Each structure stands twice: as structure tokens, then as C-alpha cells.
């Protein structure tokens, strides 16, 4: 590859990282200080291109070189922008400015390094161009997806820590003022003391855990029968399990609302504790029977020979061996029950038995300040995300097996 080609490629990649890092970090800075900033695209573009040229043409690749390039980027940006990388005076939010500039220099270094790795060994052809193009696209893709996914949650958390006055004063200013201490969490405290979120949280846990328990109690024998026995109507049963899962919830709403009104089950948690398991049992059966089939039948037969009953075999042999599947099914049911909104909204009227989604809906209908709404959303979101991250391995299995619904 000729040097001209290398220079062109390096400059393109350098410019890309210079621009995209400036745009994304610039938006974060706006959200942290609440005032508009100046985007010095050109300076970042030039400095980042210099960094990428050095990476391409300097042959010694070690930590020392990288640290030097990193520091050089940092200093050059300061020089090119007249010690005002984001168009702010250097004594204003200086810590934040330096921190962001360091982060940005780091992104430029890593981005350029990844995109340009091996450039000297490759020849200039279609393969090379596509590889470089894909690398740049991936860089853009990660930035894009992380931004669209994290942005709402980021705003949710930061806004919940603000006060009403501060939000009215400058809606863009989402900075966290640590000096406010415990009073940062005022919205949370008020939700628990004045708005009954303690009850909602408790109710949500009661409903979710009972749903898991009931669904498993019903699904385990069913799944076991499907996995282990042959009986007339088995194929029909397996097929209808999947079809049942496609039935729209909204077609069940009016009949269930009517029956539950007649039976006085409306406005009680009990109603929800029947509905949630019933709608998740088909998926639970589907997932469990698949797993039961992987357990060697000989183990169970040994148990039967040793004098265990069928129930004994299920309880002592099959279930202990199926813990991963049970965990994944439970997490799936937990997610459905914890997040369910439609039936909670239609069935619950008394605030003391609200689940979190219902309570949050109620809060949204009142003239409550935004930081309370955001704090409520955080309270509803954190448990499910914690549970999920804690057991991600099982849950992704659960999601692919049955998580189409939602």
C-alpha cells in the first residue's frame, strides 16, 4: 500500500473518531452543566487525524508509545482550542472539562488503534476497504446503541436526584451536586413516606413471588407428563401450548374483568395471582419439558426400582437436576409479573394493594413533579435489572425460549 493511501485512510478514520467523540461527549457535557457549549469539531478532527497518522507510521507499538500519543492528543487539543476545548472558560467546571477531555483523548486513541490495527501489513484492495469500513461502522454502532439504550436510563436516574426548583430553572442541567448529601434522595424518601411506594414494592414482590410459585406448581407436573409419557392428544397439546401464547391479552380483558367483578375478585391481589401464572404456564411448560427430556431416563428408573414413587422421583431426582431450567423459568415469570401493567391497571382500585406499575401510573396521573416520577421509575426498574444482571446467564436462555411475548 502506498503512503498516500495510508495517509488518506488514517485521516478519514482520525476525523471520524474526532467528530463522533466530540458530538457524544459534548451532549453529555450539556446535560451535566446545563448550558450550551461550543463544538470545536475542526480542532478535534485535526488532532485526532494527527494521532491516527502517528499510529499508522510509527512502528514501535508499546505502552509507552500509546501513553505518549494519548498525552500528545490531550495537549494538542488544548493548544488548538486555546485552552478552551468545549468553548467554556477554563476556570468554569475545570474538573469536568479536564475529565471529559481525558476521556475523549482516550476514546480517540483506542478508536484509532482498533480501526488501524494491521494497516501496514494489508494490501489496498476491496477486502482492506471493507475491513476498515466495517471497523468504523462498528465503532459508530457501539456508540449509537450504547447511547440510545443508556440515555433514557441515565436521564431517569439523574433527574430523580434533582429538586423541582433546579429542574424548572434549567431542565438541561442534570449535574449531581454531591454536597446536597442525603437531601439528593428527597424524592425517593417522599415516595416511600407520603406516596405509599413501600406498599407498592411489597405488593409487587408478593404478586411476583406467588406467581412464580403457583406457575411452577402447575407447570412442573404438566411439563413432566409431556416429557416422559406418551398419551393420546400429546401432539395436540404441545402445539396448542404455543398457540395459546399468541392469544392477545386484550381479548381476555373484558371477559376476565366481567367475571372477576361477579366473583368479587376484582380489586384484590388474588386476582392478579391467578392471571399471571395462567398466562405464563404455557411457556413454562414448553421450556421445562424441553429440559426434562435432556435428563437421562435411566436415573429416574433407578429411583423407581429403589422404591420411590413417581412424585418422589420428580421431587428428588428430576427437579434437583433441572435447577438451571427452573431458575430460567422463574426469572421469566418474575419479569412478566413484575412489569405487567394492563391487568394491574384494570383490576386494582385500592391504593394499598397497588403493584408498582399501577402505583406509578397513579402517580403519573397526578400533578407530581418530574423528579418524583423519575424516582418512581427507578424504584420500579432497579429490582428487575438487578435480578436480571445477577442471573443473566439463565435469563437469556429463558428469553429465547419464551420471551417473545411482551
Amino acid at each position, binding site marked *: 500500500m502506498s503512503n498516500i493511501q495510508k495517509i488518506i485512510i488514517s485521516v478519514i478514520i482520525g476525523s471520524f473518531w474526532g467528530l463522533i467523540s466530540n458530538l457524544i461527549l459534548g451532549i453529555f457535557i450539556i446535560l451535566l452543566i446545563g448550558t450550551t457549549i461550543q463544538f470545536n469539531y475542526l480542532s478535534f478532527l485535526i488532532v485526532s487525524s494527527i494521532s491516527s497518522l502517528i499510529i499508522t507510521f510509527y512502528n514501535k507499538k508499546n505502552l509507552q508509545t500509546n501513553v505518549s500519543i494519548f498525552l500528545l492528543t490531550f495537549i494538542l487539543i488544548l493548544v488548538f482550542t486555546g485552552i478552551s476545548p468545549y468553548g467554556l472558560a477554563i476556570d468554569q467546571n475545570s474538573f469536568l472539562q479536564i475529565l471529559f477531555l481525558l476521556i475523549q483523548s482516550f476514546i480517540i486513541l483506542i478508536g484509532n488503534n482498533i480501526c488501524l490495527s494491521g494497516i501496514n501489513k494489508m494490501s489496498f484492495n476491496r477486502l482492506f476497504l471493507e*475491513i476498515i469500513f466495517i471497523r468504523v461502522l462498528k465503532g459508530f454502532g457501539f456508540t449509537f446503541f450504547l447511547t440510545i439504550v443508556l440515555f433514557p436510563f441515565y*436521564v431517569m436516574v439523574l433527574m430523580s436526584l434533582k429538586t423541582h426548583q433546579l429542574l424548572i430553572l434549567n431542565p438541561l442541567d442534570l449535574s449531581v451536586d454531591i454536597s446536597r448529601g442525603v437531601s439528593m434522595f428527597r424524592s425517593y424518601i417522599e415516595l416511600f413516606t407520603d406516596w405509599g411506594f413501600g406498599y407498592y414494592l411489597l405488593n409487587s414482590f408478593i404478586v411476583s413471588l406467588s406467581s412464580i410459585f403457583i406457575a411452577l406448581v402447575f407447570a412442573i407436573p404438566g411439563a413432566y407428563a409431556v416429557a416422559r409419557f*406418551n398419551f393420546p392428544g400429546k401432539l395436540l397439546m404441545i402445539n396448542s401450548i404455543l398457540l395459546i401464547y399468541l*392469544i392477545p391479552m*386484550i*381479548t381476555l380483558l*373484558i371477559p376476565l374483568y366481567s367475571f372477576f367483578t361477579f366473583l368479587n375478585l376484582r380489586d384484590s391481589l388474588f386476582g392478579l395471582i391467578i392471571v399471571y401464572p395462567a398466562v405464563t404456564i404455557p411457556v413454562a411448560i414448553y421450556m421445562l419439558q424441553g429440559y426434562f427430556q435432556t435428563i437421562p431416563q435411566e436415573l429416574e428408573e433407578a429411583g423407581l426400582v429403589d422404591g420411590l414413587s413417581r412424585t418422589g422421583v420428580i421431587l428428588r431426582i428430576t427437579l434437583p437436576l433441572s435447577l438451571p431450567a427452573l431458575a430460567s423459568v422463574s426469572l421469566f415469570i418474575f419479569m412478566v409479573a413484575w412489569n405487567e401493567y394492563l391487568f394491574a391497571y384494570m383490576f386494582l382500585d385500592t391504593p394499598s394493594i397497588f403493584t408498582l406499575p399501577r402505583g406509578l401510573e397513579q402517580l403519573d396521573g397526578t400533578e407530581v413533579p418530574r423528579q418524583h416520577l423519575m424516582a418512581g421509575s427507578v424504584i*420500579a426498574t432497579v429490582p428487575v435489572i438487578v435480578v436480571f444482571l445477577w442471573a443473566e446467564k439463565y435469563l437469556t436462555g429463558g428469553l429465547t425460549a419464551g420471551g417473545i411475548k*411482551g
Partner: protein
Amino acid sequence: MGSKIFKKRMGPIEKQGVVQAYTMLVPTVAIVMAIVLFPLLANFWISFKDVTVSDLRTAEIKVSEKFQKKPKEKGDISKIEYRFNNFSKSANIKEVSFKDKIPIGLIIKDLPSNCNLSENIIGCELGNFQPKEKKKLKFETIAEDKYFLNNENPKDSSPIVEGKSENRLLNLDLKIKNFEEIFSSPNFWKTIRISFAYSLFSAIGSLTLGILAAQLLMTTFIGRGIIRGIFLFPYIAPIIAVTITWKILTDPFFGTINGILTELEILNEPISFLQVREMTFSFVGLDFTLPVALSFVILFESWRYFPLAMIFILARLQSVPKELFEAAEIDGATPFQKFRSITWPLILGVLFVLFLLRFIWTFNKFDDIFLLTGGAAGTKTLTVDVYETGFNIGNLGTGAANAVLVFLILVFAAIFIIRFSPKE
């Protein structure tokens, strides 16, 4: 494989297995029948009935009691008056009877002919009540000495009214009025169009984002597990929490997104993304009309459900031996060639199933649009219509008829899509 076995005659042990299997299945099948299949059928039934939300409460006679001219000494004459009211606007109440306790020492002067008195309990037959019908019952009493010993007020005991009201949900009065109402509604075709556009574009959007995200996570790198976990956030967070957040983000006055877009001078003035029906803008000399709220809701759906598509596609790609990609690489295939001739054919089957399910599930979806726009600004889908007619207007029958429509369209859409599916 099951059917083969049953062609043979079953031995006693196998028969025992069948019994065991059925015993284990009964409770499971029963609960699913009761909560899922039975309501589904009941929904068809309700769709042919003219019932409102107020019909769900069993019609009852409300009674109020008046005691006039409280006696001060022996021989005083007082009046007791009962008023009965059937508040129901639609239900007849038949064979209404009534009972109440009259305090000791109050003697009834002229017992009405439809009443009888045993001990000090008065019981009356009041006959049938038409909807909204009111009736009165009046008589006079004379106070005796005994009355002043206890000094009871007749109102202390509450009267008991009993009657037979038919349940309007269960009678055989079936009509197709609800369906006529739906089809003659001027907005019917518009609602259908919006529902289809919403489901179709949301499915396409979430699948497209899902494919792209899966491509990012296909290769192994440090922190891949964490990033995959983060990518799933939109899907696992409660719907209510994310809709509230997006509503606040897009608020025209205090919303962060409008704030940023105006700060960056991409927008001249804030747009209320969830409240504006459509906006006209010109591009290369042509005028385009963009349905703003509908587009935003579609973007939201794509955002919320791309993780699911991503997980499925990743699972499919990871089930393929790595050698396949490595061999292509050795042969000098470029990344795009690899995608076109290996990845794409591999995921096509999954994509098709995902598209079908996403389409069906978005079509079924109620919460998302209801919470984001409430069905305003040109985003009213059929499912939102079910809620509006059934509960806002209170016409359960029409709501159920709408739900039937949702169900039938889905069945036909599923058959249609499967029919024209690519062969796997």
C-alpha cells in the same frame, strides 16, 4: 413419534402411564382453560351482547326509610315511609320482597294489603320493578307505653330487600349490533390502517436494529457480556417506567431531547413528538407529510424490542461452528460477502419467525401506545379502541366485538404470512 405408538395396542404398563400423565395434566390444563381459553370464548359471546360496565353490578333495589312525627306520648300517631328505587337503567327486578323490624310498642294502623306482620317483623311483596322504577310504601303507627321503655327508632334496623334480577350477560339476547356499530364507524378503516402500519414498521424496525446489534456482539471481546446485558435494558425495564421517561424526555417545554436538539440548532423550536399528529416539511423541493406521533411510537417500539431480536439472532449465529466463518476468511471473503453468503441465509429462518411473532405481538399490544399517547394524535390502534369503547364509553359489548376483530385479523395475518413464507 407419538402417533406411531398409539397404533399399537397398549400394554397395561403403558396404560398406567397414560392415566398418570392425565392426572398430572389435569390441574395445568384446568387453570389455563379457566383463565385463557374460556375467557377467549366468552369474549365472542359478549361481543354479541348489548351490555355496559354498569350491567356488571347485580341490579339491586335501594331503599330509604323515613320516620315522621316521632311520638312524644302514648297514642301519638307517626308515619313510616319506605321508598324503593331500581337504579339500574336496563335490568328488570322480579318478585321483590322486603322485610323490616318495627320497634316494640308501635302498632300499625292500616296494614297495607300486600304486607303481613309476624311478631314485630313486617314483610311485604312489592312485585316487579321496571328499570328505573320507583315505589313507595306508607303506613301510620300508634305509640303504646312499651314504646317509651325502649325508645327505639324504626330506622335503627335496616330493611332487607330481596329480588330476582336476571344477569344481562347470561341471557340469550344476542345481537349483531356491536359489529354493525364498528363497521359503520367513520374511523374504522383509519384505525385498521394505523394498526397495520404500527405493527409492520415496528416489527421491521426492531428486527433491523436487532440484526445490527447482533453483528456488533458476534465477535468476542472484553466486556462483551456486560454490553450485551446493557443492550437488553430497554426490553426488561417495566413498560410504565420507560414510557414515563420517554414522555418526559420529549416534553416540548422541559424535555431533554427538545432541549438538546434546539441547543444544537437542529430544531428551530421544540416539537411535542407525542402530541403532534403530522408535520409537513419540504425536502428537495417536495413536500412530505410525516405522521409525527405515529412515527415516534414506532421508533419507541423498535427501541424497546430490538434486544429480543438481537438475542434470538445471536443464539442462532452462535449455534453455528466458528470454522464456517474462518474457512470463508481463509478463502478471502470480505466482511460483506461473509454477511451475504453465510450470516444472512443462516438467520433468515429466525428472522421470519421473529417477524411473524413481532408483528402479531405488536398488533396485540395495548400498553405501549396507551401509555405514550393514550391513542391521541393519530395513534389509535384497534387494541386502544377495545379499551376506549369497552371502558371509557363503557360499552362492554362493542369493546368485546373490537377484541374479536383483533383476534380474527391476527389469525388471518398469521395464516397469510406463513403461506407466503420463504422455505426453510
